[in-house]
């Protein structure tokens, strides 16, 4: 190896220097005639000469098929919109009448409450489960694994009914010392587990099982070197998780987590089996009475769409927050883009347009 390294090092300068010597000869030779022919010769001859194209007109590339595709899609969208607007069986009047009715709004609030509580609790429990799964303790690992295994392999519907009917399995729930008669707390299961409690319990535990895996995946996606650097700096374990690893894991966690939360919003509709009066159950009760099934389902659907849309906006800004440092410069938000656009195009009426752009 040593014998080969030396000749290479010696031979390398030779072709390099040869290249350098030949370059000054050819470069001016090519440049001089090129510079002369360009103005004198035909305008199209631009291969050798550095023609100045500054005053040429730029013709953008044409994409006729894009226009055809756009037209086809536009016709389709227009057709759907037309049928939605004109088909009387959609009964938009009924939809409008019920959309903001008190009972529907109450149901909506219940849905939001369930989503917020079980979402928050589910993700907190999921975070703990993920840390357990990644810990060094075999016991914690297997407990976490078993939890996810059970709650992911049983239908949510069954879990709900089980929790609600817990009183059938265990009449009383008590807290005390095992194998003794000491009781600190005791209550009838049926009074303890209301519809709301069963709903929250079922949704939370189910959510925790899924979010544990999402959070674990996010944590695993963070480079091992980050942990090593933090450890080498003597940063305590909890701080390493929350300050160093988790913010970076968030980038991987957030898109899937929002999927889960959006799924949960609609997943809450399953608690209708407990006759819990959230949005979907309320709608069912109403259409069973009025027989306006489709319009009322539409009311529920529209509300779910609204919630999801609002969540999507949150998602955009939260993801943006956590991409700090991951991209060199953050892209403009739609709002910033709109402002920039308006600032350029309508400088005079900027204030009012900005107002409109905000909403």
């Amino acid at each position: 190896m040593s014998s080969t390294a030396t000749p290479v090092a010696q031979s390398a300068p030779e072709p390099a220097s040869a290249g350098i010597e030949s370059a000054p000869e050819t470069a001016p030779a090519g440049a001089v005639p090129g510079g002369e022919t360009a103005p004198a010769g035909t305008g199209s001859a631009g291969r050798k000469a550095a023609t100045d194209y500054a005053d040429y007109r730029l013709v953008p590339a044409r994409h006729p098929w894009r226009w055809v595709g756009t037209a086809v899609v536009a016709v389709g969208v227009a057709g759907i919109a037309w049928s939605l607007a004109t088909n009387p069986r959609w009964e938009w009047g009924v939809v409008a009448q019920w959309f903001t009715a008190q009972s529907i709004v109450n149901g909506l609030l219940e849905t939001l409450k369930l989503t917020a509580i079980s979402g928050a609790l589910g993700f907190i429990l999921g975070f703990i489960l993920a840390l357990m799964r990644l810990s060094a303790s075999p016991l914690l690992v297997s407990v976490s694994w078993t939890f996810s295994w059970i709650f992911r392999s049983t239908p949510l519907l069954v879990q709900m009914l089980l929790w609600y009917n817990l009183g059938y399995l265990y009449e009383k729930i008590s807290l005390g010392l095992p194998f003794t008669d000491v009781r600190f707390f005791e209550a009838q299961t049926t009074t303890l587990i209301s519809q709301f409690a069963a709903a929250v319990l079922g949704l939370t535990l189910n959510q925790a099982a899924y979010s544990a895996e999402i959070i674990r995946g996010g944590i695993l996606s963070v480079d091992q070197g980050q942990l090593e650097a933090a450890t080498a700096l003597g940063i305590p374990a909890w701080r390493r998780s929350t300050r160093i690893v988790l913010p970076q894991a968030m980038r991987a966690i957030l898109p899937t987590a929002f999927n889960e939360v959006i799924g949960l919003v609609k997943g809450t509709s399953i608690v209708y089996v407990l006759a819990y009066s959230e949005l979907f159950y309320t709608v069912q009760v109403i259409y069973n009475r009025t027989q306006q099934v489709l319009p009322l389902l539409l009311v529920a659907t529209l509300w779910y769409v609204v919630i999801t849309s609002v969540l999507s906006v949150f998602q955009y800004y939260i993801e943006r927050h956590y991409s700090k440092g991951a991209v060199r410069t953050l892209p403009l938000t739609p709002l910033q883009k709109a402002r920039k656009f308006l600032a350029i195009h309508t400088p005079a009426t900027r204030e009012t347009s900005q107002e409109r752009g905000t909403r």
Partner: protein
Amino acid sequence: MSTALRPAAQTPPAAAATDAESTRGLVEITKVRKFFGAAEVLKGITLTVEPGGVAVIVGPSGSGKSTLLRTINHLEKVDAGFIAIDGTLVGYEVRGRRLHELREKEILKQRTEIGMVFQNFNLFPHLTALENVTEAPIVAPRAGKPRLSKAEARERGLELLDRVGLKDRAGAYPRQLSGGQQQRVAIARALALDPKILLFDEPTSALDPELVNEVLDVIRELAKSGTTLIIVTHEMGFARDVADTVVFMDQGQIIEQGTPREIFTNPREERTRSFFSKVIEPAFNI
């Protein structure tokens, strides 16, 4: 261990501890062995680095240099032998005739005395340069020293960034910095805890050639500061400049060690000579 031709002064840890004042940053590595599965990557390493000394470890890749470095701050646990810093064992506590393994919290405290600079910088990408530097002083529990308040840490952080020539980039995120700048931030981060010892794991290997010198210059400055430096590097010219001890490792053993002059110009071992004939020539031709 037996192959170490010039074992440096073998002060037993206990004796070193008596001289606490003058031994800030004494590193004693004694008969350290480390296995990865069945492969023995450190085969009984014995090495002493004097306080304020600069030891440069060189050798072919896979020779165990980085592993040795990582055992010093207990990122890797040794399988046999022991490592002491100023007479205190790393990762263990002596009680009577027993060695008690330290708990994580205690080990973290020991680590705050040992700064480490990584090949891939390992800066925290979601924190600014300044936040990278101030994080540990604010939160890491240190032996005998209070944690810094945010304001103190910030002041100290800016001072350190200034020292590595990056005061004006304090608010930049690592990805907005060049490789050389990132590594200088990483050095400032390692300095933020006032460590007795600084470990450099191939600090310039991930850098473009023209960025290498800005990092090496910072390390040269540190070499004069009285902090003990242990550097794993492939930059032989730099090693010759900065080291007072050069250690040549191959296949998990120290083949020989000595002053740069002894090792680079007059190596005793055939393996050392053959290694340098491959790597030194280009560096010295420049």
